[in-house]
């Protein structure tokens, strides 16, 4: 039967969550379109992974090769292009992750297949594929239709589909001989670089004040720092603040930083791009202060204040201080 591929993402001995999220969505799509859900596992000594993946897919294709031990887009592309050409899946799902963005566009280009990246939903209508993706930092959604094709490549935004606990599928494990014949020519993985450990671990704090682009200038940082102090909490931030080096990398909340789950998260001048929201949406109580009433952060916050942070935050700090002194 025709297949629907999900590329397994793994790193440092662990299957990444996005894999199971894609398998969950893939299962729904494959059942509706009457195709086989196939997990595609590229790696080295990955037998244990294959077993686990068999619970979520009808079939697990395993290509075992020392050259696939660590992700390498050059080697991955060659193997995947081979598998897609041979087996002609209707769709190949790849995570929209650091690995996926390094692989999917060149793979689709090589095979002349339509590609849609960073999708938050997708559905077949006959042979046509419709996708939903976000633009302008998550402020607008776009529904788009891909050019008709026998096969499509789609990258899926992580943490979009909730993994469902399901009856194990008992998928068959199929070992495929590696199509790689030569050494990898142009690109070599050297090593992983672990993040530096800072003085403060924002992931274990009970109160986090997150600051974003809206703070505008480094000179304004004391305003939010004082709010964090008044609450006995720590200061975290979104990406632009780390990019500008106003706070160290270990204070960054989000996909490329840390995931926090404090009792209280106050977002100040943060619009709420998904990369940030993924890292804080499970906080017990979320309060957001932003002047744009349509800012995506208000879609995850419990309470919102639509106003100028420079007017609100200093007053809030004083009131909290007073309340604590009472």
């Amino acid at each position, binding site marked *: 039967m025709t297949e629907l591929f999900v590329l397994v993402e793994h790193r440092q001995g662990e299957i990444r969550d996005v894999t199971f999220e894609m398998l969950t969505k893939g299962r729904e799509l494959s059942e509706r379109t009457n195709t086989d859900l196939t997990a595609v596992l590229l790696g080295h000594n990955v037998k244990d992974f294959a077993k686990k993946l068999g619970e979520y897919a009808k079939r697990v294709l395993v290509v075992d090769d020392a050259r696939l031990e660590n992700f390498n887009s050059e080697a991955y592309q060659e193997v995947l292009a081979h598998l897609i050409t041979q087996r002609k899946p209707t769709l190949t799902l790849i995570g929209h992750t650091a690995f996926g963005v390094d692989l999917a566009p060149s793979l689709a280009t090589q095979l002349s297949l339509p590609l849609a990246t960073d999708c938050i939903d997708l559905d077949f209508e006959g042979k046509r594929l419709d996708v939903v993706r976000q633009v302008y930092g*998550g*402020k607008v959604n776009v*529904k788009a239709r891909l*050019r008709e094709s026998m096969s499509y490549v789609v990258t899926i935004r992580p943490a979009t589909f909730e993994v469902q606990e399901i009856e194990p599928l008992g998928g068959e494990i199929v070992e495929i001989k590696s199509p790689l014949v030569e050494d990898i020519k142009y690109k070599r993985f050297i090593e992983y670089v672990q993040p530096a450990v800072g003085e403060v671990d924002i992931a274990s704090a009970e109160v986090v004040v997150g600051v974003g*682009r809206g703070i505008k200038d480094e000179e304004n940082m004391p305003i939010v720092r004082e709010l964090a102090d008044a609450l006995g909490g720590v200061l975290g931030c979104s990406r632009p603040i780390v990019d500008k080096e106003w706070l160290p990398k270990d204070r960054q909340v989000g996909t490329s930083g840390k995931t926090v789950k404090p009792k209280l998260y106050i977002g100040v001048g943060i619009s709420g791009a998904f990369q940030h929201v993924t890292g804080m949406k499970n906080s017990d109580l979320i309060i957001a202060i932003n002047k744009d009433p*349509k800012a995506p952060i208000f879609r995850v916050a419990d309470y*919102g204040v639509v106003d100028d942070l420079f007017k609100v935050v200093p007053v809030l700090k004083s009131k909290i201080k007073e309340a604590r002194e009472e």
Partner: protein
Amino acid sequence: MDIVVCVKHVPETAEVEIAVDKSGKSIVTEDLVFDINEWDDYALEEAVLLKEKLGGSIAKILHRAIKDLPFDLILTGAQAGDDGYAQVGVVLAELLGIPHATMVKKVEPVEGLVKINRELEGGLEETVEVELPTLLTIQTGINEPRYVSIMGIRKARAKEINVLGLEDLQLGENEVGESGSWMTVERMFIPPAEKEAEILGGSPDEVTLKIVEILRARGLI
């Protein structure tokens, strides 16, 4: 080292309210300020830093135009702030038949190759070596884009800008725009809210009082 940088012009939307226009397939751009894509700004700065270190020239061009230019390195932003595809650089590399690496946070030229750090998830990075010529997509935060002085802007104005049309690029009408694209926009809409924050209204004095009450009720102060 000869470096090509690809840049895109995008509306600045981080701190403004956006509306979908009447067609339902685009946003209202009239009141938006257009600027160089934030990621591309870092790519340009990285090119300037490399040039200062190694010499060579920098060209700002995209796509078909590149294939006849001499280059060792092509830099693009990791993604655009408007459509956020994160694909143009990698597609371009594949079309040119050269290797690529995305989300680059550090570039170190070594004889015949570049040693780079790619940003992965959770603060992790990976070090990778890529042979030249290559294309790198640059992640924000890799450097500090400089402010250009008035003198610099004057000098830039005097530079020759080569505007190429479809004919110059030997591209047909159907190879560009929507007909040449992988997908067609059906409609744009403001995302539905899974949860809507309760908006606290009033003066700063009033809203902050409400927040204090909420925190007190939850035992947070």
